[in-house]
């Protein structure tokens, strides 16, 4: 049953994705490799759409992957799956544990967990870079070193990084700019 599998897979993501925002992405990347529910190109599109629509990114991405895998009902099931651990854990904390973030054992664990989560997002980012900035397929066909680089993409990447350093605008602005550049210069 695809729905049961969707629910438990996203339940697991909800249980282990800690740290917010992009923390769900490494786990979604794993779905690409393990189950083939979505392709790595689709994952990138899903991240972009999730960042440019209202709602938390992790929730949006869960709905999208669920929809791709099991239609409208799949989207609902995946989203319920990712939030169920939160409801259980937060209810327990609210009734029994209080300010867990002030407990030494949690602070100690997070001392190592935070850099590890950055490593996880870095690993997911590495896959994104391979797709967005390099032409690995073309490189293996031609064996020409220059064909490895997608120069048009790398230039746009540099410009967006500069813009982000200079102006702290919402991600949706950069996504909009990149879409326009993509259309005008036929990326």
């Amino acid at each position: 049953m695809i729905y049961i599998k969707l629910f438990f897979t996203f339940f697991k993501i909800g249980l282990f994705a800690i740290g917010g925002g992009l923390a769900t992405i490494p786990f979604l990347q794993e779905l690409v490799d393990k189950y083939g529910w979505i392709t790595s190109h689709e994952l990138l599109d899903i991240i972009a759409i999730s960042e440019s629509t209202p709602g938390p990114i992790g929730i949006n991405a869960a709905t999208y992957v669920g929809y791709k895998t099991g239609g409208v009902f799949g989207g609902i099931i995946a989203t319920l799956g990712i939030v169920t651990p939160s409801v259980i854990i937060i209810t327990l904390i609210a009734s029994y544990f209080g300010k867990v973030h002030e407990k030494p054992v949690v602070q100690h664990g997070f001392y190592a967990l935070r850099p590890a989560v950055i490593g996880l997002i870095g690993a997911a980012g590495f896959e994104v870079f391979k797709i967005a900035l390099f032409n690995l397929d073309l490189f293996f066909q031609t064996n020409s070193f220059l064909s490895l680089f997608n120069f048009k993409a790398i230039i746009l990447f540099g410009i967006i990084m500069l813009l982000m350093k200079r102006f702290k605008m919402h991600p949706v602005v950069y996504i909009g700019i990149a879409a326009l550049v993509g259309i005008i210069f036929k990326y």
Partner: protein
Amino acid sequence: MKDLWDLFRVFAQIGALTFGGGYAMLPIIQEEIVNKRGWATDEEILDYYAIGQSTPGIIAVNTATFIGYKRKGIIGAIVATLGMIFPSIVIITIIAVFFDQFENYQIVQHAFAGIRVAVAALILNAIVTMWQKAVKDYIGIIIFLVSFFVVAFLDVSPIWVVIISFIVGIIIKHKKVDSK
């Protein structure tokens, strides 16, 4: 019943009006929950945020669950969470249906080829920002490198990295406390 409907409605509104979760949601949560309705104080909201960050799950959802629970117990927690995810489910499903129909158009493909580059930049930017906050010493750098390497090249599941790094943190810090 009316209280539960209010919980659902308010969190649905918050979910529908904020782009990106986490801290992007903090101002609107403060406005709707603290200033307008007095369901929690500013300090409580900040505590919920801190707890939401140090517990599994999506921060915005954790905060919604917390406020729902404080207002109406377990049912309140469930209703607030359903409210928070409702707009995402509706909006994303509509977009996904449309996207399936238009993704083969040339113009959409060009747009998304550009957008993928922006996503790469956004992820790098997020990593740099998080790094400045979370990596304080060489142990942090080593943990980052090991985590990156085992997931990117050895296909280790992120779940193991989360569990093991948490335990490693407790052991390292525990030893430091002992040796003092």
